């Protein structure tokens, strides 16, 4: 039980509060759970303090609301995570775009990942 939920993540309130149903987290698509897990994992490893991610998320939600961009909570969560990962220099935008294109074109699929995952 080394991975019990961190209250500062689980208990966020305001616009950035995690979507819930019956008190439980809800992920409407697989990727939503994955990006949530990645954001939490990097925080756990000390890549950034959660406050930094939270500030980014709040800003992202506000900007999207102001501009009337009808993106979902987790689309904004994803955008925040991506920006923070790039800002921290963990990945480069060029690598990320290239890898996304590989998945989009089918040049790379999930099976490749499992093979390369050591």
């Amino acid at each position, binding site marked *: 039980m080394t991975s019990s939920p961190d209250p500062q993540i689980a208990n966020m309130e305001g616009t950035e509060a995690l979507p819930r149903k019956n008190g*439980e987290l809800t992920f409407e698509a697989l990727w939503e759970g994955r990006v949530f897990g990645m954001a939490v994992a990097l925080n756990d490893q000390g890549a950034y303090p959660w406050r930094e991610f939270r500030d980014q998320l709040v800003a992202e939600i506000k900007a999207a609301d102001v501009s009337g961009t009808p993106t979902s909570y987790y689309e904004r969560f994803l955008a925040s995570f991506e920006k923070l*990962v790039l800002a921290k220099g963990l990945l480069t935008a060029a690598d990320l775009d290239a890898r996304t294109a590989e998945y989009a074109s089918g040049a790379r699929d999930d099976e490749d990942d499992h093979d390369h995952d050591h």
Partner: protein
Amino acid sequence: MSMSGGHHPEQESFAALRTKALESLLVEKGLLASDAIDTLVQAYEQDIGPRNGAKVVARAWVDPAYRQRLLENGTAAIAELGFVSGQGSEFVVVQNTPTIHNLIVCTLCSCYPSGLLGLPPKWYKDFAYRSRAVIEPRQVLRELGLDLDDTAEIQVWDSTAELRYMVIPERPIGTEGMTEEDLAQLVTRDAMIGVANATAPAIV
């Protein structure tokens, strides 16, 4: 969003593709392990909501001796299952019967059995619920979708920092053959606050 709108065979959303790209790169660089993400997501999915409370209720439904201990000393009986009722407060469990319906509120602030139910719903903290639950519980329940029989007596329990409550809803009919694990699925957060009944089992 330079990559959006591309043609891809499986019609995956940009978000799904972007997430895959992020994960595969972060894993490749040794910054993340896919297994660790699985474990984390599972922990957050399972431990944040009211599942611990639901397990307590399901045990009480199948085990009359446990139910008795739970009603007599909630704090100790909850600890038996390895759960912490939390916040150093005394835990009192009350049970619904065909004639008595229990309802939990915190009129002063928002004391709530978080150790078992996770976070309180937004309305629980609203002034309207906190003030009206005591004065006109039947009407409040009706507005929340629970129409009680006029003969049922409603008992309202006002939580404090020292004293927390949880409701054992009535076990739905048609659940005789169900396992404890399946029964727990029928126990919602709202049922343990007392603003709903346990979910009726799906007809197989």
